[in-house]
C-alpha cells in the first residue's frame, strides 16, 4: 500500500521557487566540493577563485572581464534565439550547426577584407552570417511545414554536418583555402586582418566591445518582440495550440518559417560577433553554446529576463573554472561542464519540488 502521494501545489509562488532553486544550486556546489576534496583541492579556495573569475589579486583583472564577456555574448544571443523557437514549440537543437555556418560565412568575409574599413567589414560579416544561418533555419522549417519532418532530427544532423565541414576546412591545405595560414606547414586557421576584428570603447585599459552592447540591445528587442508585438503574439499562439492558430486565420507555416529565420539568423549573428571578437575561427569556436543555450533557455523557462540572468551565471561558472584551472593543474575546464550538469539536474529537481509536494496519507486525512 502506498503511503505517500504527489499533489500539485495550488499556488506557484515565485519566492518559493527561487528558494528551492537556491537550495538546488547549493546542493550541486556541495557535490562539486566533494569531487574537489577527492582530488585533494580545497573547495573553498577553488570556489572563491571561480566565482571571482580570477579578479582578486590580479593586476590584469580587466582581462578577466573581457574574457568573461567573450563567453557571455554568444551564449546570451544563442539562448535568446533558441527561446524564440522553443516558445513556438519548434525544437531547434541545431544551435551548434547554425552557429558554425554563421562563423564560416563571417570568416569568408573576414579573410577577404584586407584594406576595408573596420565598420563595413564587421557589418558585412554579421549580414553574411545572419543570412546564411537564417537560410538553413528556413530550410529546416520548410521541410517541417511542407512534409512534417521531425525538426529535432533535422537540426541535430545539421550540427554534425557543419562540424565536419569546418574540420574539413581546417585540415585541408589547398590553394583555394584562404582560411588557413600561408606560413605554416601544418594546416592551421589564420588570424583575421585588423579590419575584421571587433572594435570597442576603451574604458581605461578595459575595452568594452561593441558586441556586448549589441547583445544587450538584442535582449531588450527580443523581450519587447515576444511580449508586445503582433509577431510575438503569433509565436505564443502557435506554440500554445497550432490548431487554434489555424482557426484564428493565422498562416501557421509562414509564422514558423519567419520565426525560424529570426532564430537562426540571431545565432548566425552570435557567431559573427564571436569570430570577430576572437579574431579567428576554429572548430571549437562555438564553445558548445548550441547545447548550453538549450539548458539556459529551459532553466529560464523561456523568459527573456531570466535568460539574461542565467547566461550571466553560466558564463561566470564557465570562465571561472577556466580561470581557476590555471591555479590547479589537477582540474581543467571540463569541471565546469560537470558542475553545470549537476546544477541543471538539481534545479530540475528543485523545480519539481516547487510545483509538487509529497503528502502522507495520514496527514491528508487530518488536513
Amino acid at each position: 500500500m502506498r503511503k505517500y502521494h504527489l499533489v500539485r501545489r495550488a499556488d506557484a509562488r515565485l519566492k518559493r521557487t527561487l528558494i528551492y532553486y537556491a537550495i538546488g544550486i547549493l546542493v550541486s556546489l556541495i557535490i562539486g566540493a566533494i569531487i574537489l576534496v577527492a582530488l585533494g583541492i580545497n573547495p573553498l579556495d577553488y570556489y572563491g577563485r571561480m566565482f571571482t573569475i580570477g579578479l582578486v589579486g590580479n593586476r590584469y583583472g580587466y582581462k578577466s572581464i573581457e574574457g568573461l564577456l567573450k563567453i557571455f555574448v554568444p551564449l546570451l544571443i544563442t539562448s535568446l534565439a533558441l527561446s524564440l523557437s522553443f516558445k513556438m514549440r519548434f525544437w531547434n537543437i541545431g544551435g551548434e550547426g547554425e552557429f558554425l555556418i554563421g562563423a564560416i560565412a563571417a570568416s569568408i568575409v573576414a579573410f577577404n577584407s584586407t584594406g576595408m574599413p573596420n565598420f563595413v567589414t564587421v557589418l558585412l560579416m554579421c549580414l553574411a552570417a545572419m543570412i546564411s544561418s537564417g537560410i538553413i533555419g528556413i530550410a529546416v522549417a520548410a521541410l517541417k511545414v511542407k512534409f512534417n519532418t521531425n525538426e529535432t532530427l533535422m537540426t541535430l544532423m545539421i550540427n554534425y554536418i557543419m562540424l565536419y565541414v569546418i574540420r574539413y576546412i581546417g585540415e585541408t591545405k589547398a590553394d583555394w583555402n584562404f582560411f588557413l595560414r600561408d606560413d605554416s606547414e601544418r594546416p592551421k586557421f589564420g588570424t583575421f586582418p585588423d579590419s575584421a576584428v571587433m572594435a570597442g570603447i576603451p574604458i581605461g585599459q578595459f575595452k568594452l566591445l561593441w558586441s556586448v552592447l549589441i547583445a544587450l540591445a538584442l535582449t531588450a528587442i527580443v523581450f519587447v518582440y515576444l511580449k508586445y508585438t503582433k509577431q510575438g503574439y503569433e509565436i505564443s499562439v502557435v506554440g500554445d495550440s497550432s490548431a487554434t492558430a489555424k482557426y484564428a486565420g493565422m498562416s501557421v507555416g509562414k509564422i514558423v518559417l519567419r520565426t525560424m529565420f529570426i532564430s537562426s539568423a540571431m545565432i548566425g549573428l552570435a557567431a559573427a560577433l564571436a569570430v570577430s571578437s576572437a579574431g579567428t575561427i576554429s572548430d571549437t569556436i562555438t564553445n558548445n553554446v548550441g547545447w548550453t543555450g538549450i539548458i539556459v533557455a529551459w532553466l529560464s523557462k523561456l523568459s527573456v529576463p531570466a535568460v539574461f540572468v542565467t547566461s550571466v551565471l553560466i558564463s561566470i561558472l564557465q570562465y571561472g573554472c577556466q580561470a581557476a584551472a590555471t591555479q590547479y593543474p589537477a582540474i581543467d575546464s571540463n569541471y565546469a561542464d560537470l558542475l553545470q550538469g549537476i546544477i541543471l539536474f538539481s534545479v530540475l529537481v528543485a523545480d519539481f519540488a516547487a510545483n509538487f509536494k509529497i503528502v502522507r496519507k495520514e496527514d491528508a486525512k487530518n488536513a
Partner: protein
Amino acid sequence: MEYAIELKGITKSFGPVAANKNINLSLAKGEILALLGENGSGKTTLMNMLSGIYMPDSGSIFIDGKKVEINSPEDSGKLGIGMVHQHFKLVERFTALENIRIGIRNEGRFLHGADVRKKIEDTAAKFGFDIDLDKVVANMAVSEKQTLEILKVLCYGAKIIILDEPTAVLTVQEIERLFAVLRKMKEEGHSIIIITHKLNEVMAISDRVAVLRHGEYIDTVVTKETNEKTLTELMVGRKIELNIERPVMDKTHPLLEIRDLTVKNDEGAIAVDHINFYIRGGEMLGVAGIAGSGQKELCEAIAGLRKIEEGQMIHEGESIVGMSPKKILEHGISMSFIPEDRLGMGLAPSMSITDNMILKNYNESKGIFVDRKTARIEAQKVIDRLEVVTPSTETPVRRLSGGNVQKVLLGREIKSGPNVLITAYPVRGLDINSSYTIYNILNEQKKKGVGILFVGEDLDVMLALCDKIMVICHGRLQGVVNSDHTTKEDIGLMMTGTVNIVNKEGKTDGIAKDSAITDEEGKA
C-alpha cells in the same frame, strides 16, 4: 441490506479545489444507480477513485461490506469494478478480440487461443451483445466501440460496472439498445452506476438516483418516487426554467447558401457529400447527426479552413469559395467549434483571457504592437456581460472551468459582430445553468438578425432552440425539418439513415435553395 459499494466520507482535493467533500454513497447489489450532477459537481472524480485512477484524501470505501483500499486500476479490477470511460480506452489497430484479450491475465500465452474466444463469445451471448470479434476497432462505429468497452469489463469479471456518460455519443435507437443491455446485466446480478446529464434517461433506466452538487453529496432518491422536476431542483439547488426560449423573428433573405458542397476529411474520404442548405437572418438552423457525420468538415469548409472538392458557398450573393479564413471572417462569418477536449480549437489555453479575446483581430490595430489595452477592456466587457467567473482578465484560460471557457470563446465570436454565426457543440460538457447562458447568448444574436448554424448533440435542446433542423448521416443530407412539426424519434431515424426525406416529392423542407440566386450567378 448488503451493498456492493459503500463510500463513507470521501474527500478529494486538487490543490485548493475540493472536488469531493465528504461524500456518502451506496450502491445496492443488482441495482442501477444513476449519478446525477451538473458539470464540475465531482461525479467523474468520485468514479475515478473507484477505478483506482485517483486516491481519496480521506474517507473509506467498502466493497461487499469489506473495507478496501484502491491504489491502482489493477486493484480496482481485482475487486470486480469495471469502468467504461467517456473516452474509450481501446487500441485502434487491434480487433475487438485482441482488445479484450490483452487485458486478460494468467490465461495462456496466445493471443488468439480458442478457449479465450469461446469465453468472450459466451459472455457476449449471455448479455445479448451483437458484436463482430474480428472487426478492427478503427473501423468501428462509436456504438460498437462502446459495446466492446462494456463487453471488455464484463469479460474481466466485473460485477460492478461504472459507465461515464455512455449516452453522450449515441443515437436514440442506440441508447435504447444500451439500456436493454444494462437491464440484462442487472438481471444477471450486476450492479451498475451510470453517470449522465440527461434526466429522461435517468428516469428510464435507474432504480435510484444519487445527486451531487458542487462536490457535495445531496441526496439519494428512489426513481419511481420522484420526477424530473424534483431531480433538477436537487441537482441545481433551485428551480430553473426548463423551457428554452425560442424567439420567432421575421426571417430576412438568405445570408449564407451552400450548394452541392462536397468536402473530404483528413483521411481523404468524402466527409460532406453534396449538401444543400441555406441560413437566413434571424434564424437558427440546427445540424443533427451522429458524431463524426461530417459536422466538423462542414464547419471547417465554411470557415475556409478546409479545401472543398465541389459545390458553392455563397454569402450575401458573393462566392466565398477559395477565400482565406481571414477574408471569410471579415465578411462576417464567424465559426467556433468546441472539440471534445474543449480547448484544442479556438482558444490558446495557456494564454490569458485578454490574449484570447484578440485572437481573431489582433492584426487590425495599427503598427507592429498588439493592442492589449483595448483587448483588456473588451475582455472585461465579455466577462461582465456573460458572467464569466474568473479572478481577472489576465487569468490563463486553462484555469477556468469548462462553462467559463466556452463563454469566453462565444463572447469573442459575437464581439466581432458577425452576421452568420456557426457554432458547433457550444454547450458540450456544460451544466444546465451554463448551457442556458449560452442559449441566451445565441438567442440574443438571433434577435439581432444574425443567422446561426447550431451543430449540436442533444436533440431535446435542438428541438427547443432551433427553428429548423438539418439532419445529416455519413455526410449526406437526410432532410431539413421544422422543429415544430417533428419528433425526436423522426430525427433519430434520419440520423441513422433509415429515413431520408430529401427525395420525397412535395417536401419543400428537404432542399433549400435561394431562388434569388440562379445557378449561373452562383458559379460566377
